[in-house]
Structures are given as C-alpha cells and as structure tokens.
C-alpha cells in the first residue's frame, strides 16, 4: 500500500520535472534537423524561472477567473499526468482515475483555458477559444473511441490494466489496435497544438489557436500555463508509450532494479517519440484551419472503425 503511494508520488514529481526537458529536447532536435544549433535542452527551465520572476501584467478588466485559471489548468493537467503509468504500473491512484477520467480532466483544463481566453474581451481570445472548442468537438470523441477500443480489447478501462494486458501474451498485432494507434497519434497532434494543426511558435492571428487564448498572460501566470502545456505533451506521449510500447515498464510490486529498468526504458521511449514527432513536424506543413476538422474527422472515423472491427477480430468478452 505505501509502496504504491511512494510510486505514485515519485511519478508525480517525475512527470513535473521531465516535462520542460521534453520541450527542450523537442526544440533542440527540431533545430538540428533544420541545420541550426538550437537552444540548450535545459532552456525551458530557465525560461520558466525567468517568467516567474518577472512582473505580472494583467488587463484592467480581467476578472478573478483570469488570475485563478492558470493554477486550476495546471493542477488538472498534473493530476491527469500522474494517472498515466510511466516507469511502473500499479499506481495507487489508478483505482480512482481511468482513461476516461484522464480525457475528462484534460477537458476541464481546456474549458478553463477557453474561458480565460474570453475573459479580457479581445478578438484574439475569441478566435483561440472558438477554434479550440471546434477542434475539441472532434478530437475528444476520437480519443474516446480509440480508448474504447483499447478498453474492449483489454477488458478494463484502467490504464495499468491495459498496459499489463498489452505486455501479456494476448496483446498483439491487431487491426483495431493499429487503427486506434493512428487515431491517438492524430488526436495527440491536434490536442498539443503541433503542426499540422497549430504552430506552437507563431503569433500570427490567422494561424494561432493555443497562443491566441494565452495572449494576455504574462509573468508567473504564463509560466504556469507553459508548464501545463509541456505536461500535456508529456502526458500524451506517455499514454501512447505505455499502451503501444509497454516493454520495460515495471510491473506491480517489483523491486528497485525493475524501477531502474523502467525509468531507463521510459526515458528511451520519450526520446524516440520526441524524435519521431519532430521528424513528422518538419516534413509536413501546417493545415488551413478548416482542413483540420477533416484531419480530426479521420481520427474519429478510424476510432469508430476500430471499435466496429473489434467485434470482427475478437471473440466478445
């Protein structure tokens, strides 16, 4: 029991500490692929510290919601990230939050972020919020359908159980799993505002979605929101890794050696996925806003198809 809590707290600290490193690594790899030297991998940590120390400027008509939202967004994203097994399964909170809870917690964060965008009453905030909710209306059902497929295959909605199932003898090559993987990747690209859905480095009004919602934030509020965004990317990569590439994850009640192996495996998975993500981003261009629903619609169709094909490929439980 206490070992489970220890694992859980270690995981909470781990995801918090690793998230800016992941952002830094992504930026570095991208710069290298574009034949630049790029900033240091630890630059996001320095950026966060700098932002926290800066004076916070808030619009005159911003309300308490504007000032409280960053903390609530960060907290919900962090709790969701702690629910995803990274180096070990069998977390103590897995009895409280399953995959559906993770999707819904991210939904809460998005809801508050969209409201914060609307709070000051500028048109940029409106653009960001309305586009974000439009993307969410397709991305969230797509993710839920992919999650349903996995739950139907594994017989449980808890991520630890799904991960353990995929590690076992029954988890294997399956058309539904492949379709669910593609759907999850598309949703991850959409939800984390990566190319081809949104450019994380732009401030042009026609092209920004996430940046538009946080345009008015500065100082420590901005630091907290940036931390939440990098946590979200870490969450999605961990989710895909723990389900589709589960090897190396320490099982329930394993020893310190297994933890070390798990940590190493997790770091390796993060590195590989970050590289693949950046490779994909440099290979494609950003889509026009109204082609993104087509893109996300594909994810929804794939998820639905995966669930339907599930009934074909497997004897129902």
């Amino acid at each position, binding site marked *: 029991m206490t070992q489970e809590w220890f694992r859980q707290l270690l995981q909470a600290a781990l995801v918090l500490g690793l998230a800016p490193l992941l952002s830094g690594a992504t930026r570095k790899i991208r710069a290298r692929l574009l034949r630049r030297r790029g900033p240091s991998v630890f630059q996001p940590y320095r950026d966060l510290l700098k932002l926290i120390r800066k004076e916070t*400027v808030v619009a005159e008509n911003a309300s308490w919601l504007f*000032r409280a939202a960053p903390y609530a967004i*960060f907290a919900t994203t962090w709790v969701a990230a702690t629910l995803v097994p990274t180096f070990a399964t069998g977390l103590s909170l897995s009895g409280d939050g399953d995959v559906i809870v993770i999707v819904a917690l991210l939904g809460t964060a998005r809801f508050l972020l969209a409201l914060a965008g609307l709070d000051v*009453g500028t048109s940029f905030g409106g653009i960001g919020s309305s586009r974000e909710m439009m993307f969410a209306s397709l991305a969230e059902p797509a993710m839920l359908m992919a999650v*349903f497929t996995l739950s139907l295959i594994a017989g449980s909605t*808890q991520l630890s159980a799904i991960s353990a199932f995929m590690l076992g003898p029954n988890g294997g090559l399956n058309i539904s799993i492949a379709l669910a993987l593609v759907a999850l990747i598309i949703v991850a690209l959409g939800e984390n505002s990566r190319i081809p859905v949104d450019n994380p480095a732009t401030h042009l009004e026609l092209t920004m979605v996430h940046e538009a919602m946080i*345009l008015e934030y500065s100082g420590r509020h901005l630091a907290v929101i940036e931390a939440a965004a990098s946590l979200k990317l870490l969450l999605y990569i961990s989710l895909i890794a723990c389900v589709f590439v589960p090897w190396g994850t320490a099982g329930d009640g394993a020893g310190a050696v297994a933890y070390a192996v798990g940590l190493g495996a997790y770091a390796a998975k993060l590195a590989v996925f970050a590289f693949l993500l950046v490779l994909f981003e440099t290979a494609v261009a950003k889509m026009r806003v109204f082609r993104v629903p087509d893109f996300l619609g594909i994810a929804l169709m794939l998820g639905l198809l995966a669930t339907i094909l599930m*009934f074909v490929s497997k004897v*129902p439980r």
Partner: protein
Amino acid sequence: MPLSTPHCLSQLAASGVGLLFALAPIGIFAARRPLGIRLTYAACMLICAGLAGVALLVLLTPASKLGFIHIPVGLPLGRTVLGFDPLSAAFAVIINLATAIISGYAIGHGAHAREPLRIMPFYPAFIAGMNLVLLAQDAFSFLVGWEFMSLASWALVVSEHNSAENRRAALVYLIMATGGGLALLLAFGLLAGPGGGYAFDQIRLAASSGVGSIVLILALAGAGSKAGLVPLHAWLPLAHPAAPSHVSALMSGVMTKVAVYGFVRLIFDLAGPPLWWWSIPVLLVAGITTLLGVLYALMEHDLKRLLAYHTVENIGIIFIGLGLSLAFKAGGLGAAAALALVAAIFHVFNHSLFKSLLFLGSGSVLTATGERDMEHLGGLIHRMPVTAVAFLVGCIAISALPPFNGFVSEWLTFQAILLSPQLPQWIQRLLVPAIGAMLACSAALAAGCFVKAFGMTFLGRPRSGAATAARETDRWSRSAMLVFAALCLLAGVLPGFVIDSIGSVTQMVVGSRLSPQAALPWFRIIPINPARSAYGGLLLFVMILIATAATAFIVRRFAAHSVRRSPAWDCGFPDASPATQYTAGSFAQPIRRVFGSVVFRAREHVTMPKPGDTAVAKLRVDLHDTIWEAFYAPVIRLVEGAADRLNKLQFLTIRNYLMLVFAALVILLIVVGTL
C-alpha cells in the same frame, strides 16, 4: 413510530399533494401582496421538502413494508390507488428536491413579477400535478395528474401574454401536450386490455408482448414528446423560454423528468418482458436527439433558448441509458441492465440540479439586465459575482467535467456502453458503439456550447448599457443557486450514496442491483468489479485542490509580488469598442461551418461594397430548421388544407343541410337493417 404502519408514508405523501392543490386557490388571494407571494412560495418549498423526505424514507424502506392507500373515487368501476413505490420514490426525491430549491429562489425572484395573479394560482397546481403523477399507482390518477401538469404549465407559459412569440409558443405547446396525453391514454388503454382494471398491479398481471410493442411506440410519442425527444421536441425551445424564469427551471429541470418517469413506468414496469428489438428505436431516437439538441443549442444566442435546446440533448443522454438498460434486460443481463439504469437515473438527478441552476442563473441575469440575448450582455462577472460563480459551477457540471456530478453519470453511461459486447444481437452490438461515438461528440460540443454561454454572458466587456448597469440579485435567489452548486459538487465527489439509493429501484425494475458503494475506501465507486474500472471522485478532487494550492503557494513564493493592471495587450492593436469582441454568433462560426453546413444547411453570404464605396458590408447567415421543415411544416400544411376544405360545410344552403341530415338518417337505417 410512523414507519411501522405501511400506509403511513403514502398517507403523508397524499396529504402533501392535497395541500399543494389547496394552495392553488389560496394563491389567488395571496397574489395581491408581495408578502403573500413570498409566503405562498415558502409554503411550496416546505411542502416539497417534506415530500422529498417522505420519498427518501420510502426509498430506504424495504419493499415489503410499503402499502398504498385506496380511495373510492375515479373511474366508475375502479378505484384510485396512491402511494410511492421505489421507482416513483426515486423520481419523487429528485423532483421535490429541485422544486423545493426553485421555490426558495422564487421567494426572492417571484415577488417582482409583473402580473402575479397569472402565476400564483397555477404554480402550486403545477407542482401538485407533477407529484400526483408520481404518487399514482393506477392509470386514472396518473393521467389526471399528467393533464393537470400540462394545463398548469400551459397557463404559466401564457402568463406573459403580451408578446406574439409567447402566444405562439403556448399554442404549439398546447397542441403537442394534448397529442402526448392522447398517446398515453391509448397506451394505458391497450395495457389494461378489454376487461382489465386500470390499477398498476392489475396491469402488470395482464402484460403481453404484442401489445407491448405498440405501447413502446405510444410511450415514445407521448412521454417522449413531453420529455423532448426529436422529432417531437419543437415545443420545448418555444415554451420553456416563454415562461417566467423559475417556471422555466421547473419545466426544463423537473417536468421533463416526470416524462422520463412515465416512460420508465410504462416500458420497464407495466409492459412486461421486453422483446430484443425494443431497444433499437429508443437508442436511435436518443442518439439523434443528443447530437441534434446540442447542435441547435450552439446556433442560439438567446440564453434561455440555448438552455432549452440543451435540455433536449440531456434527455437524449438519459434515454441512451434507458435504451441500453432495455437492451441488457431483454438479453437477460441483469447486472449490466442495472448499471445502465443507474446511469440514466443518476443523470436524471444531475440534470435536475444543474439545468435548474442554469435557468435560475439566466433568470437572475434577466432581472438584472432585462436582456436574454447574449449579444447584448458581457462582463457580468464583475457586477454579479455570486451569480457568476454559481453559473460557472453549473456550466462545468453540465459539460460532464470532473470533479462535478455530470461526469459521474457520463462515466457510468460509458461503462455501460463498454459492456455491450455481451449483447446477443449483432445489430445491437454494432449500434451501441455508434451511439457511444454520438454521446462523446455531443459531450465535447456541449462543453463548447457552455464556454460560449458563460463567456459571452459573464466574461469580456459589456456589450450594452443594460449589462454595464447590472446589479446582483437578492439573498434568496443567491442562496438557492449556491445550494444547487453545492449539491452538484457533493453528488460529484460522493456518488456512492446516490447509487446505493437507486439500488432498490433497479431491483424492482430489472431484477438486480449493483453492489453497495458507500462502504468503499475513499468513497470510490466500483460499479462492476475492481479489476475493470473504478472512479474516486473525492480523492481526485482532493488531489486537484492540493495541486492547485501547492502550485499557487510555490509559485507565489518565488515570484515577483507585483501585479500591474494595464490596458489589454491585444497584440498591440487594442480597440476600445466592446463591439469588436467575439459575439455568440462568431464563437459558434467554426462549429457552424463544420457541422451546421450539413445539419442546418447553414450558408454565409457576404456582400462587400467595392473599394471607395461607403456603403455598409453585410454578412447574412441562413439557417434552416430541418426538422421543422421536414416534419412539422408538411403536417401543418395538411391540417390547414383539410380544414380549408371542411370549411365549405359552413356555407351550405338550407337544402344542402337537409340533404345531409336525410343522408345520415338513411345510412343509419341501412346499418341497423344489415346488423
């Protein structure tokens, strides 16, 4: 101890309903002074709270100890049987709890009504009618209560008769309510059979499946139209906004639940064992209702009409749960059927809480600003802080986001959907994932809808003078809304108690119940088994609070303490006019373009003058209400055409009338002769 007498609880409940009926004529006199109005609402609140308590006692009493009272009034050869059984008790708790809090709101809000005489007599009668429907254990009192409910609410809808829009809403409502009542009458008649009695226990003995199929269609038409299933929903977005705000809350949050109760009673209890295909029309209609309801809501910029359309969506979610339960029950899977039914009834409870809260909030906004149109509101979070907090809680809860209660019922529905591979029929097994996709899509769209509703009304800058001059509402209204908000949170973090209370209902209706939840560690809920899924609302809420507090503390510890207020950054292009902010229509534009171009044939037309021309540029958006045009308009045209033709009978000559009479006489003689 009163509990020892089986009939005592039923007698208490019946006397409560009788008191409410008695309040109606008293209301005529009390309406002359504001104090009388307040006292009437206070009396309603207390009686409803009492009824809720009685119903809760019934829920917690084992079924064998319940008894009904028989009154020898009613149909010539029958009696009236009144009493709560577990099914009606569960609904009675939900309905009376919400009604009590709404009446508390009305103590503060209702005193300012312009014509209280049009509202006061009918309000207690409305509540009395709803409770009579729940209390009824025979078809006659059920239908009497149903008609009372419809007519009293119609009178309330027409109370603000000065606008043509309200009058038209009342007409549509009356026609559809009458149609629904007729369908229910036919359903009960079929169930009772040619020689049978109308009491529920007599109907249960006479159940047969062939009749049951027709009863399913009639129940979908009758109870479904009152609840708001597509395509019989058209009266809902017209009538609910037309009534005064607390009555809108009652109609949307409470009366629709009575309709759901009617459906459950007819199909799950009285119609006998279900056939395998019964769930398919229910699921199809429910799925379409869910998706269409939220899309209609997204296109609206009238706050109350948006909420009314959203009720349609939530009724769809409830019926998805009911359809799943029906499918599992027909397939012999008792535990799964219990889970789906728990999900549906939990959502009934949740919806009565948050929809009432949202309607009360919009009522406060309407009183404070005189505006229902979101395009004229904005920035109210500064002027009406308490209303804003309560409305925010309602918005988060209705978008099915943790840690509030909307998420729990949606989670339970998803868990029921994930049990669908056990269903025996292939069509059901493939239909249920599609319904799951529709549910997920509408949940995400609902979140977007309520970002729009809250953001346009309360956030941003005020778009009109009325919004700038708004003031917070009175004490009673504020407390009522905060009580609803607190209940939303409580039901979200302690769902085990609610699930356990519904246990006796599922035992009665589908024959099995979920394992007791209240004793689990950290108040988790584990509906099926621990290896499969579990949800710990309390622990998650505590973790979120701890994380927020820890983050805020640590960041502020290291941060610079200064927070400077300055004009908005707006990328360096600030605009002082509040008209440049996003409006409700512009917020919905991306979704309108993606979904609306198919569902509503939405088209945008832009007329741009040439450069140098000082004429105004115009944007016109065309939206077609496809269901009205496809379903209602042809029926209306048909009826009007037939009426026109029959009108000629008014203008015949005397010779023609004599010929008609003569022809009727001859035909009657022929009929008598050949018999």
